[in-house]
């Protein structure tokens, strides 16, 4: 059976007999409007994939098209199906889907996990899958019992009919699969939800605690070799020559292979590959990348920040600032940042006569699949890309250039053995893709009444998107929206806000990093607002209120955080309290931080967060994501910096690229804002941006000094 090819703009569903007589629902919904990220995205699938399997034993397996890397999609997405299916939650399992067009993001046109969109992407799609399947199971039971389907209902994995009739989903699945799927189904009114909105523990909690989860790093395959790669010590360097004699003397080494970026050492085990790579001598033509230094970038960026350039937003009155009663000019700097997920990157590839198979934790499955196919000279459908749960990612596994996947394909292709490429922590910190460094320069002024008269905001930094396949969709008139998001679209009512963007060219490779542009723009916006409030002699919350009058969700989050944190009450001796609010990924997060300074170092004691992510699917996960996003943002705010000297990354591992430790973790209180928005918005990222400015503003309250450079550890406080 083939599904209709011309299925655009309407959902279709087909049922087919499943393995072992179960029910398979194939379903694809392209309807959600959204920007299409990938150029030449493949056409809608001819053969819709299964999102749902009901086995004869009644177990329900939901195929999860997004990557599970900590954000809890393998629980939240099955909840969407189960809500409508009326199955027993104890019978629900989750399985990560392989790369396939039927798993495309409904808004992006590729299979992707990013932009805090996973739940919103699946919100209608997976509830519809559940409702369709429920209707088919009821129809199967009604036919068997020769009763009106309207007299039957589903409950906890059973169909119940007149006269006490009862049949389990597992016994009905085979018959249901042969029935036509209903063309339309009504979805529940949110007030009738039984599961959505309730705290549900993760389906994978036990396997994670017992360490039985197979991450990419843990994959075992017959005759699997391990490869480590010597990558360029500076960006853009090319291999000039290399000596293999000493490498071959290392026991266990089987191949030394030049790749398009570097030289791979393939061995029977990790330690042999590591020893082999240690013995490898590569001479590099370093090229222009060797001239890069953080100091030089700082000088260049600061100079550019004072010059005119392309504007992302024009002020209503460009001359307004000249008439300001008070003016503040401030320059800000944030560094390059590594993602540093706990699981170092890895990718396993087996090339066979009839195709290839790949295993990795990918945020961009179909992009990686297509790139792998190109590298291997195969049609994409001949490349099976299996998604494995990843030990974090934060954007690093969503690379338009598919770097770690294509590299593994090159090595496996040339070595002609199954290969797992493993990145060491040093490889990850040194040879990777970074959140770029940015310099902001803000000139802002107040009028005689203490209101904002004008705000000229210049941003300098490289583009994450330029040069990638996403450029046609995300760079408009020379403006990479990820460089200015959070400033040019600020909810603050500032008529005379002008935003200039200087996009620098650099051989340094860069990527989105949890919260993308918001990771630096919120810091600048929210500390400058705090500074203007102080200049106006107003309380920071009071100062924001009129500026947010047209954005009730933002204001409500701000008010809730302030109320819960005891804003305006004494904070205690030696402590400072600061507030920040930021809207991103369709959600709003406000935070109040309480800090002290100990031996010149910043200590964050408490963060009170108010979070509006629309309709909450799983409050337990939302709380965890807010805690985690704060920890991630705080890691960077306090410690994170990748710096360059002679083109080389100066950091290498967690001793010189420190991340937050347990003893540094503040108490975090999470309060959800009941905004009444009838749909879910972003959860994974929006709590990262506000923490740095909340802490910086608290530091000002405590010390009277403004934090304009991150990380805060670069400054001696107190």
């Amino acid at each position, binding site marked *: 059976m083939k599904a209709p090819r011309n299925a655009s703009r309407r959902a279709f569903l087909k049922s087919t007999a499943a393995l072992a007589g179960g029910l398979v629902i194939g379903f694809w919904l392209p309807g959600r409007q959204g920007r299409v990220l990938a150029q030449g995205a493949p056409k809608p699938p001819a053969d819709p994939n299964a999102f749902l399997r009901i086995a004869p034993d009644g177990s329900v397996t939901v195929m999860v098209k997004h990557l*599970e*890397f*900590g*954000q*809890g999609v393998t629980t939240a997405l099955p909840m969407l199906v189960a809500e409508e299916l009326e199955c027993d939650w104890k019978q629900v399992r989750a399985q990560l889907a392989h790369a396939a067009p039927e798993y495309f993001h409904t808004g992006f046109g590729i299979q992707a996990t990013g932009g805090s969109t996973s739940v919103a992407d699946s919100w209608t799609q997976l509830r519809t899958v559940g409702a369709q399947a429920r209707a088919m199971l009821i129809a199967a039971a009604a036919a068997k019992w020769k009763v009106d389907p309207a007299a039957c209902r589903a409950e906890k994995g059973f169909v119940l009919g007149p006269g006490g009739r009862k049949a389990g989903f597992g016994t009905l699945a085979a018959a249901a699969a042969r029935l036509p799927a209903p063309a339309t189904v009504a979805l529940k009114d949110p007030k009738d939800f039984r599961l959505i909105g309730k705290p549900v*523990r*993760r389906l*994978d*909690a*036990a396997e*994670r*605690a*017992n*360490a*039985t*989860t*197979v*991450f990419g*790093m*843990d994959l*075992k395959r017959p005759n699997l070799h*391990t490869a480590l790669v010597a990558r360029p010590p500076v960006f853009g360097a090319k291999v000039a020559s290399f000596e293999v004699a000493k490498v071959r003397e290392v026991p266990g080494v089987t191949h030394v292979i030049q790749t398009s970026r570097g030289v791979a050492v393939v061995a029977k*085990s*990790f*330690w042999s590959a590591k020893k082999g790579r240690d013995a490898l001598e590569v001479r590099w033509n370093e090229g222009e990348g060797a001239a890069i230094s953080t100091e030089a970038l700082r000088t260049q960026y600061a100079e550019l920040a004072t010059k005119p350039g392309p504007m992302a937003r024009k002020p209503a009155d460009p001359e307004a600032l000249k008439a300001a009663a008070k003016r503040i000019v401030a320059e800000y700097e944030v560094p390059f940042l590594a993602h*540093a*997920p*706990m*699981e*170092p990157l890895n990718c396993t590839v087996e090339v066979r006569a009839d195709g290839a198979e790949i295993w990795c934790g990918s945020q961009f499955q179909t992009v990686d699949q297509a790139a792998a196919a190109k590298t291997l000279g195969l049609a994409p459908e001949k490349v099976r890309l299996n998604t494995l*749960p*990843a*030990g*974090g990612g*934060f954007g690093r596994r969503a690379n338009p250039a598919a770097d770690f996947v294509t590299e593994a394909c090159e090595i496996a292709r040339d070595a002609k053995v199954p290969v797992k490429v*493993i990145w*060491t*922590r*040093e490889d990850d910190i040194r040879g990777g893709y970074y959140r770029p460094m940015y310099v902001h320069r803000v000139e802002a002024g107040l009028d005689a009444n203490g209101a904002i008269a004008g705000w000229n905001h210049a941003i300098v930094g490289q583009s994450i998107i330029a040069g990638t396949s996403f450029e046609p969709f995300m760079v408009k008139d020379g403006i990479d929206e990820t460089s200015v998001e959070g400033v040019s679209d600020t909810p603050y009512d500032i008529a005379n806000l002008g935003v200039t963007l200087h996009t620098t060219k650099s051989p340094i490779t860069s990527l989105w990093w949890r919260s993308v542009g918001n990771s630096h723009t919120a810091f600048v916006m929210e500390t400058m607002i705090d500074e203007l409030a102080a200049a106006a002699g107003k309380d920071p919350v009071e100062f924001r209120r009129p500026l947010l009058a047209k954005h009730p969700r933002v204001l409500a989050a701000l008010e809730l955080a302030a109320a819960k944190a005891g804003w305006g009450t004494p904070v205690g001796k030696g402590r400072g309290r600061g507030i920040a609010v930021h809207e991103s990924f369709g959600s709003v997060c406000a935070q109040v931080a309480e800090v002290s300074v100990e031996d010149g170092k910043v200590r964050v004691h408490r963060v009170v967060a108010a979070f509006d992510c629309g309709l909450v699917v799983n409050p*337990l996960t939302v709380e*965890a994501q807010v*805690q*985690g*996003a*704060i*920890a*991630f943002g705080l*890691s960077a705010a306090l410690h994170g910096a990748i710096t360059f000297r002679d083109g080389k990354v100066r950091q290498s*591992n*967690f*001793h010189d690229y420190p*991340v*937050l*430790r*347990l*003893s540094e*973790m503040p*108490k*975090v209180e999470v309060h959800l804002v009941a905004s009444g928005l009838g749909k879910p918005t972003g959860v994974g990222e929006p709590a990262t941006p506000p923490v740095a400015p909340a802490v910086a503003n608290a530091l000002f309250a405590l010390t009277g000094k403004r934090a304009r450079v991150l990380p805060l550890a670069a400054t001696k406080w107190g």
Partner: protein
Amino acid sequence: MISFFVNGDPVDFNAAPDFPLLWALRDHLGLTGTKFGCGLAQCGACTVHVDGEPRLSCSVGLGEVKGKRVTTIEGLAPGNPVVKAVKAAWIERDVVQCGYCQPGQVMAAVALLQRNRAPTDADIDAAMDGNLCRCGTYPRIREAVKAAAATLAPKRPPGRRK
């Protein structure tokens, strides 16, 4: 030849004394519950117990464990009250996010509670500070360690068992 015990079983390795215990466990014994995170004793993902004490297996050479008893997450005795309490608390408190660091966290927590069944906040900070988590599960780790400790607190006279 270096001989020691892994999860109760004797093992022999023909390897240099500086061969990292982590890679002996992962690549040669197939015990992949012990994770590679940094290779430099900085992150705790590779935490195992050597004669009951938490050690970072990426930076422990086989020569150091000669004749000793190595326990990995796979070898934690399921019936051990501390192990049971820690795993139950980890699930009940919904601690994990990506889960990659969690075997190391569980090993560190078990080691802590084996020697101190009533840890203070400072004890928890000290014992768990070497175990990094990039997802930021720290608040729930603290809660879970406390919850596990609470279940281990003596509730009936010593010597009597259920």
